[in-house]
């Protein structure tokens, strides 16, 4: 371990020597070294909480480093802010999409570099420039609309377009593909190759190992804030990479799933002709007790929309719903919770976390709401529940009173998942439960999902990762253009059959 694969005698664009950064109680980075050559695509890998985002923020001046040296283009590099780093040629898309939701796409794309005429911003030219930037990432949207009127995937692409648009020598992408679908990832990779051929270097953070092997030249692995090694991608087999990241070997992910379809007399949920105009075409679906139903489809295909109308976050205008064989009319999430449903939404930044509250408070939220605010859960009970969740999901936090905003992105995701698991719903709706979660935790979460359904909980899981759907789903519903197009059962479920259904 600790190898530093040398780049063939070109002068590195960026050289980092022994940088360290500590937060109260956590050594997030411990003497990490790193180098990247011009035109290199370099993966930065590690488990949730390994220190990847912190590394990036120290490099770009969002955090000040405790010690260490950074050389950029042979010069001492001391960015004082993200804006400063940008003017020096380091452009970053941080893990949390960092754009202004209330401004238009054009305004976001041109912020701080608006084209001017006679000293004043020219909206016409700004729009034109925005359109050019969007075209590079293959986005065909109206840039005069407010950013938050678009999905997170689109926002993510806009953020990437913005970062590429600034004339950067080094582009940093922190989990840019977490909310993109396969087609968009391909488009992004094409773009990255193009930038590479222009001599631009790219640091790429992801939890998708296939993507690492597809696009990167070298890999640097961090574990617990420490530098583990830098490797040439071609010379590092996946098993060794995983070993470097987790510090131990993982059993293969192929544990065959239990595919016997359950008895439909025990349906926990049945919807018929259930839909909403301009939102989702009518859907028929039933979910049995202890069943995991997967929801596949491209982004915008209606996956999240289906979850939302089932949970009452959107009012339906047609169709019927039965829960445990009783007809119900759910008009709000509160009623859905009372009927034993739980919903873990896709966008943790907007719908999920309350950054200032502690891990414990965030986790207990849904359960407390379910029991009623007048009956506070005793502190000892809270602590016991939260601690067991922290252990089961291996959430990396020094203690349960840490503000959740200070956790790494993937660990925040786990806390939200834990929040809904604690309510022990009869049917849990999960939208992209494994986004931004590292491979080790990925295993844990799939294992927990299986365990839950053995205990009789039903799950409806929307995911863009077909690989994982195939592993855990008893049934897969394929959505397309806001419509249910196919339902696959038992041995019909395979990545190929799902892709075919989507492509039809």
């Amino acid at each position, binding site marked *: 371990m600790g190898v530093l694969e040398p780049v063939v005698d070109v002068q590195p664009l960026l050289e980092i020597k022994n940088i360290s950064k500590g937060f109260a109680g956590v050594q997030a980075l411990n003497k990490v070294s790193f180098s990247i050559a011009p035109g290199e695509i370099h993966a930065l890998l590690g488990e949730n909480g390994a220190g990847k985002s912190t590394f990036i923020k120290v490099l770009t001046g*969002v955090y000040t480093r405790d010690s260490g040296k950074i050389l950029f283009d042979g010069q001492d590099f001391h960015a004082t*802010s*993200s*804006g*400063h780093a*940008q*003017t020096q040629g380091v452009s*970053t898309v*941080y893990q*949390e*999409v*960092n*754009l*202004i*939701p*209330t*401004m*238009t796409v054009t*305004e976001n794309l041109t*912020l*701080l570099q*608006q084209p001017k005429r006679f000293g*004043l*911003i020219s*909206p016409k030219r700004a729009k034109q420039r925005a359109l050019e930037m969007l075209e590079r990432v293959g986005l065909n949207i109206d840039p*005069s*609309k*407010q950013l938050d*009127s678009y999905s997170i995937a689109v926002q993510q692409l806009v953020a990437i377009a*913005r970062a590429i648009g600034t004339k950067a020598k080094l582009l940093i992408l922190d989990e840019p593909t977490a909310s993109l679908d396969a087609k968009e990832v391909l488009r992004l990779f094409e773009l990255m190759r193009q930038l590479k051929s222009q001599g631009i270097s790219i640091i790429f953070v992801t939890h998708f190992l296939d993507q690492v092997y597809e696009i990167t030249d070298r890999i640097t692995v961090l574990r617990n804030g420490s530098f583990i090694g830098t490797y040439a991608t071609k010379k590092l087999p996946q098993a060794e990479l995983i070993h470097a990241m987790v510090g131990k070997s993982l059993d293969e992910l192929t544990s065959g799933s239990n595919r016997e379809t359950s008895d439909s007399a025990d349906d926990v949920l049945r919807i018929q002709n259930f839909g909403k105009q*301009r939102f989702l075409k009518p859907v028929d679906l039933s979910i049995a007790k202890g069943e995991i139903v997967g929801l596949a489809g491209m982004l915008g295909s209606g996956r999240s929309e289906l979850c939302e109308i089932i949970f009452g976050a959107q009012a339906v205008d047609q169709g019927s719903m039965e829960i445990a064989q009783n007809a119900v009319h759910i008009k709000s999430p509160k009623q859905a919770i009372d009927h034993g449903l739980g919903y873990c939404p896709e966008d943790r930044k907007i719908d999920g976390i309350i950054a200032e509250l502690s891990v414990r408070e965030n986790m207990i939220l849904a359960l407390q709401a379910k029991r009623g605010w007048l009956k506070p859960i005793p502190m000892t009970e809270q602590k016991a529940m939260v601690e067991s969740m922290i252990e089961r999901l291996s959430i990396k936090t020094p203690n349960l009173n840490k503000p959740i905003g200070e956790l790494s992105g993937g660990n925040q995701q786990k806390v939200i998942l834990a929040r809904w698991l604690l309510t022990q719903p009869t049917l849990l709706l999960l939208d992209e439960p494994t986004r931004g979660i590292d491979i080790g935790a990925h295993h844990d979460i799939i294992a927990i999902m299986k365990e839950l359904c053995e205990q009789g909980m039903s799950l409806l899981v929307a995911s863009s990762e077909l690989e994982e759907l195939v592993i855990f789903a008893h049934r897969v519903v394929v959505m397309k253009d806001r419509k249910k197009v196919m339902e696959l059962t038992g041995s019909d479920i395979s990545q190929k059959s799902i892709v075919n259904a989507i492509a039809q």
Partner: protein
Amino acid sequence: MLNERTLPLISAIIVLLLLYGFGSIAYQGFFGLRLAGYLLTDNAFIIVTAVGMAFVILSGGIDLSVGSMIAFVCALMALLVVKFQIHPVVAIAISVCVGTLFGTVMGLVIAIFKIQPFIVTLAGMFLFRGLGYVINTQQVKIDHPFMSSLSEFGIIIGQGELNFVAIIMILFLALGVIISRYTRFGHNVYAIGGDAQSAALIGVNVPWTTVKVYALSGFYSSVAGVLFAVATGSAYPEIGIAVELDAIAAVVLGGTLLTGGVGYVFGAFIGGMTFGVIQQLINFDGTLNAASTRIVIGALLLLFILLQKIILVWAKKFSAKGSD
């Protein structure tokens, strides 16, 4: 043009037109250039204050010091012109500079020590009011031929008159609109109001933008103070009490969200005029005494905010149908 961003402003304009239309039908002499000119003059200093306030609110902050700033600037003008015999043009320049400086200092405190704007500007409110009293405790006449010629200056349009105060108001309104829409600083204000953390990550200099916002508000409220001094030709320490609330109300009536990041500076004008029209309606009616005037204004404010919301919801439904 008709989208989620412009809708609140458009519904504010519709409400203003409805009110004005109602007055024109119900009362004789309501419609016409005479009242229009009067409305522009009478509400000029609220509107100018509200333009500055609009920037503050768009940036996600609040400025409670503007009313006291107006009183302080008036007192300072009186001191300079009457006691020190300085020419009013110089006195105006000094007063506006001092006001802007005070705004800057508040901005610095907010940005550097990360104290809530509410607290800092509340302190500013007490401080400036006190400074006004230090300068003089009584009503003082600002007697100067130049001041009178300013206040008498006007362009006659038909039956109405566009006088000095109204002209200055329109100029500063236009300036505010241009700054907010067509300068980098203006966009940065929207950015930090929309999401300060993201704005910082994009590279917006958040502290510096904050300082500038409060400097600008200090500038606008001291211009409002000058306008007040010109219009009334006098200064006394109690003027401008609760004007900060009127200005905030005008900004909100103009369709700007108190949470920041959403709205238009031009809305401050619409809100200020809505305020003025409501007051005129009550005047024309003539049956209300002073106490019930306040109650009616309060009730109408609430009503018209609700009406705006209704127009908004209705327009959204309509446009959703249209775009399908």
